[in-house]
């Protein structure tokens, strides 16, 4: 079992004819994802590695039954791509590109609030249900099907955590990154709700980082609504305040978003906080053994 994507998910790639788009479409397809179409305005009728290209999302949906959009267009065009996907009634948008203007994301979230469409990202590494479907950048071979859900703000570090779990023989139900920008589509709470409801998920790993207050809010949510065991790790214990640590959202400002505040909130909610990826994987092994 899994959340959000599975072996039947039909994906269209927005920006498939770009270098980035064609490279990643191929990797997703190699992993087994049903990449059924691509979209690049003006390139309709062509093909990329055997994948048919359309001028619009509406055509890709009509002709190929696409329901999920992976957005791989350059950042200045992401807003238009996402609005098009929402207006066509797509079920899920995975917004993978870094550097989307915050105002665009604000307007996008406003538009999404009027629809049932879900957006992961922007600046997300994507989502993977091991052995079934990859929509994003994850290195597929480090993942293994199994019972642990992983939700993260970071990309590359979440690969490492999945890799550590796999090394212990512990597989994952679904892993996804909500994105490193100041504003994200789906929140930790949205994902925790789905993991809690998913029969295939027995334990959850939450990977947070300094800046914003998403982890504090997730902790409060876990205390009230999540009965499955959660293990967490917060990145940036050694980050100095006032400096942006790569991600636009990873900055401690005016005393908010500190490592200590996040760890305190999680521990108060009964969520153990690991200090390294290896430690997190061992904590998961322990909670699975106990359950």
């Amino acid at each position, binding site marked *: 079992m899994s959340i959000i994507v599975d072996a039947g998910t039909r994906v269209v790639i927005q920006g498939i004819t770009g270098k980035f788009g064609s490279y990643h479409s191929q990797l997703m397809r190699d992993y087994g994802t049903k990449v059924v179409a691509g979209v690049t305005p003006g390139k309709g009728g062509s093909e990329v590695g055997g994948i048919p290209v359309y001028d619009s999302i509406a055509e890709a949906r009509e002709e190929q039954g696409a329901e999920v959009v992976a957005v791989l267009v350059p950042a200045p065009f992401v807003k238009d791509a996402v609005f098009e996907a929402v207006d066509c009634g797509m079920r899920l948008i995975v917004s993978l590109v870094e550097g989307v203007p915050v105002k665009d994301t604000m307007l996008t979230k*406003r538009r999404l609030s009027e629809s049932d469409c879900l957006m992961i990202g922007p600046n997300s590494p994507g989502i993977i249900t091991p052995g079934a479907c990859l929509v994003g950048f994850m290195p597929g071979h480090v993942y293994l099907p199994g019972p642990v859900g992983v939700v993260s703000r970071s990309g590359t570090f979440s690969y490492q955590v999945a890799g550590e779990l796999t090394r212990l023989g512990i597989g994952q139900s679904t892993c996804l990154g909500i994105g490193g920008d100041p*504003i994200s589509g789906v929140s930790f709470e949205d994902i925790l709700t789905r993991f809690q409801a998913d029969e295939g998920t027995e334990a959850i790993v939450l990977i947070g980082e300094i800046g914003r207050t998403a982890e504090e809010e997730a902790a409060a949510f876990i205390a009230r609504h999540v009965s499955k065991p959660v293990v967490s790790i917060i990145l940036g214990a050694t980050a100095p305040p006032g400096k942006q640590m790569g*991600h636009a959202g990873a900055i401690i400002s005016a005393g908010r978003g500190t490592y200590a505040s996040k760890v305190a909130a999680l521990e108060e909610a009964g969520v153990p906080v690991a*200090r390294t990826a290896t430690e997190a994987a061992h904590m998961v092994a322990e909670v699975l053994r106990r359950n």
Partner: protein
Amino acid sequence: MKMLEYQAKRLLAEYGVPVPKGVVCRAEGEVAAAWQTLVEPGALGAAPQNLVLKAQVPSGKRGKGGGILVARSAAEAREAVTRLLASEVCGFPVPEVLAEQQLPGGRELYLSVLTGTAPSNPRPVVMLSAEGGMEIEDLAREFPDSINAVRVDPAYGLLPYQARGLARRAGLDATAQAQLVQIIAAAYRAYWESDAELVEINPLTLLPTGGLVALDAKVTIDNAARHRHPELEGARIDSVETRAAALGLSYVELEGDIGLISNGAGLTMATMDHLALLGGRPANFLDTGERVLRGGIPDGLGLLLANPAVRVVLINIFGGGVRCDVIAERIVEAVRALPVGHIPIVASLHGRNDAVGQEMLQQAALPRVTVLPTIEEALREAVRLSREPAPEEGSGR
């Protein structure tokens, strides 16, 4: 991008926010003309006028840092500008000084527009405080009841009733209140149309003659939206961080001795944290981001080698979209091209094609490079090497 005070005021003035008359001086020779424009009889009535000279640096603490001087004569003004241009204020050089008419003091308000990032409902927030002149954090602590805020629906923008509702609570007379409504609307438009993260007018001062004036202003523009605003200028800060940013790298200098190159903000922070747990001290945060295949490794290594505190370099890459065999090639090229000298390099490559990448690095047999199979081993080795006694002087980089 942080704008300097005069740049922020220029932007706000275009939207109709009243600002003091000012002239930017970049050399001592420009002060006499500024004095003439701003202070000579006729410029602002008959009353004797002073000039305020303000160092243009991107710091909110420049008043305390000696960056604001008052001059009562042309000679004093020249002396003050000369002094400021030659000084450092809050750690920044001062290439520009804003000369402004000194206005008579009055009641001070605080006004800002910023991007509220509550995950469930991110919206622009307009904040007005009937008290001003101190940092918003201090206002929130000392006068929490003075602060009112409205959240704006980004699809419709700030509505007039919202601006009126804020202005009504500032305790002003009818004329000033009407002017405040205009200023709030102007600040919001400046924020929205410039893709700002923050527009802050503090203090917004009520002059004894009745008008409101923005005595100081801060504007920060969303870096991701700069391509839409070629007309906007910001502070040009020359630091290792901004030089790295120009190369497309996120870099923050820290106080340790283990130079770090990694990809992805989270992985980079995780590596720093883990090094600290093992007793090591990271010298920097360096996330190559998507530059990892295009210049990220050689440019990053160049930055680290230029930091005399660095005693060992750790390259920790987890390839998602990127392939470790290509990363290995980049590392080999960079190490061969750069003056690595006696600095040992520890590499850890994981993710896509990791076995091939690790093998390629081993095969290259670079004398200073160690490749280790797990991240933990690589980190331990980097910490160990950082504690080794330094080689003798002159064995050189």
